[in-house]
């Protein structure tokens, strides 16, 4: 009953086998938990644990096994223990878990109803696109006056309370709460998707805050400016870069989405495992102060105003990204869109909210439960305005993604600020 643990990994065609030798106890259980999470992070959703040479398991070890089972089942995958040693089998049976954890088919989901996907390969990644809501469209509306940002000159006159039900996605500068006075010390980047609103406060706390739609509660954000889009998405595109292991630039995901609706403005919401986000966020609320005009984007003042690192942040996180892109922005949205591709042909505006790592289920999934699960489990790390910095020398590049799901569709209506969505 010697101490220690050794884990040997076998890669098979569609699954991974981990052979675990030694003790699965309170001291070593986390070692196995990390190995299992590494498998999930690689996008492998079928795992067998060979415990023939595991000579000991305690409840701490069982906890890891049950957690793994739940995570694999949660993403539509398979998790099973094979060849348990007699002692391990006895303890797992005593815990009433034998019938569930031993064997080969536990947790396997059927794929009989899976609709056909259009499959393409590009940049070393695989893209599978499904019809989502075939007749859905999006209507978008700009709010506020973004031209006041360079001088941090916002006052109560420009701000607007945005109501954010489940069929709206929105982004901009704002704060949770109603009214300029209540929010003036906290205005920062916000992002709202599927009835969940998250804000990056600028009051020095640096802890992102969020509100989730529940019962009759619908999140509201007081926005200095922003874009809100209402409606549905026609397509769902899954992308996966595990064959190459090389992450995909966000603009490449966008290019694949735009291929389905060429020449139109596009709205999208995306959930993906991040290999690093390149973004910026405000450090201070950009509201009018007594000290005269500010120069937010000029050196050296920019350092006081913006948090930006040339290194990508939020690696090994899950990112929720939402925004709009267009190669011919309509008048209503033009002040809010900036070039986001190397040639400058496509303009857009995207914000990202980063969460702790959660594996994503493969195949055709729904936006609302995926987003709700991320917010439910906590772990919101921050919200940033995404940047694309393609200067040949010294440019930071752009955000990189490993795998994910992107819901997107055409924007067929632009609403003036005098109208409601």
């Amino acid at each position: 009953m010697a101490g220690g643990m050794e884990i040997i990994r076998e890669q098979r065609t569609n699954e991974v086998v981990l052979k675990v030798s030694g003790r699965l106890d309170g001291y070593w259980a986390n070692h196995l938990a990390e190995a299992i999470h590494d498998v999930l992070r690689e996008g492998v959703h079928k795992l067998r644990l060979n415990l023939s040479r595991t000579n000991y398991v305690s409840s701490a070890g069982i906890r890891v096994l049950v957690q793994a089972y739940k995570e694999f089942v949660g993403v539509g995958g398979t998790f099973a223990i094979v060849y348990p040693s007699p002692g391990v089998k006895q303890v797992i049976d005593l815990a009433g878990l034998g019938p569930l954890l031993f064997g080969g088919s536990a947790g396997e989901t059927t794929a009989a109803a899976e609709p056909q996907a259009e499959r393409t390969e590009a940049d070393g990644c695989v893209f599978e696109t499904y019809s989502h809501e075939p007749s859905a469209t999006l209507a978008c509306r700009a709010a506020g006056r973004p031209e006041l940002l360079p001088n941090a000159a916002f006052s109560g006159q420009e701000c607007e309370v945005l109501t954010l039900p489940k069929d709206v996605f929105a982004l901009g500068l704002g704060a949770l709460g109603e009214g300029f006075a209540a929010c003036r010390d906290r205005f920062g980047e916000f992002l709202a998707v599927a009835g969940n609103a998250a804000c990056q406060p600028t009051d020095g706390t640096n802890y992102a805050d969020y509100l989730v739609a529940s019962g009759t509660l619908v999140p509201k954000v007081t926005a200095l400016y922003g874009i809100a889009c209402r409606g549905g998405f026609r397509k769902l595109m899954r992308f996966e870069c595990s064959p190459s292991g090389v992450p995909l630039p966000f603009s490449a995901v966008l290019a694949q989405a735009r291929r389905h609706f060429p020449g139109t403005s596009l709205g999208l919401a995306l959930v993906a495992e991040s290999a690093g986000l390149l973004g910026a966020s405000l450090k201070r609320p950009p509201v009018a102060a007594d000290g005269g005009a500010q120069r937010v984007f000029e050196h050296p003042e920019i350092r006081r105003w913006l948090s930006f690192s040339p290194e990508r942040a939020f690696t090994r996180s899950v990112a929720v990204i939402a925004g709009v892109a267009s190669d011919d922005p309509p008048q209503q949205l033009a002040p809010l869109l900036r070039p986001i591709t190397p040639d400058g042909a496509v303009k857009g505006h995207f914000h990202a909210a980063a969460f702790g790592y959660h594996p994503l289920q493969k195949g055709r999934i729904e936006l609302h439960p995926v987003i709700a699960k991320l917010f439910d489990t906590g772990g919101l790390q921050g919200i940033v305005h995404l940047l694309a910095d393609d200067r040949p020398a010294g440019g930071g590049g752009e955000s990189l993604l490993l795998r994910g799901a992107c819901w997107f569709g055409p924007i067929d209506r632009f609403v003036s600020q005098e109208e409601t969505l």
Partner: protein
Amino acid sequence: MTLDTDPSTEDHIRLNAEVGELERLTAWLDGFCERHEIPDDAHYHLNVAVEELALNAIKHGRCSPAEGAIEVGLRLSGQELQITFTDTGIPFNPLNAPPPELTGSIADRPIGGLGIHLVRSLMNSVEYERAGGQNRLRLKKDL
């Protein structure tokens, strides 16, 4: 198999309330079992039960100070292994813990709560008392 029936065949160990101490505990249990040729299945059950109690005290006992907060004693008496487990944590009688949910969908089961169930299942008797500011458990295992 030879069982040592000398009543002096007992040993004890004092541990800090830290997860890192579990390896030392395991090595000590293994050493005792090998010296006294305890059968493999009883050896295994002893390991599971004592680790469960130790981990519970370390994680939830709020032992302060952590140094020397846990003491485990083993005594071989004929065909019976007697275990005492003492910790300076907050009062906790594991025998009052509700039984875990052992049936139904795994998705609906809470993770945890199994440790005490394993201790009660693997030992022949478990008694608890709170005395002198300590939790004291007396366990017996037939060999």
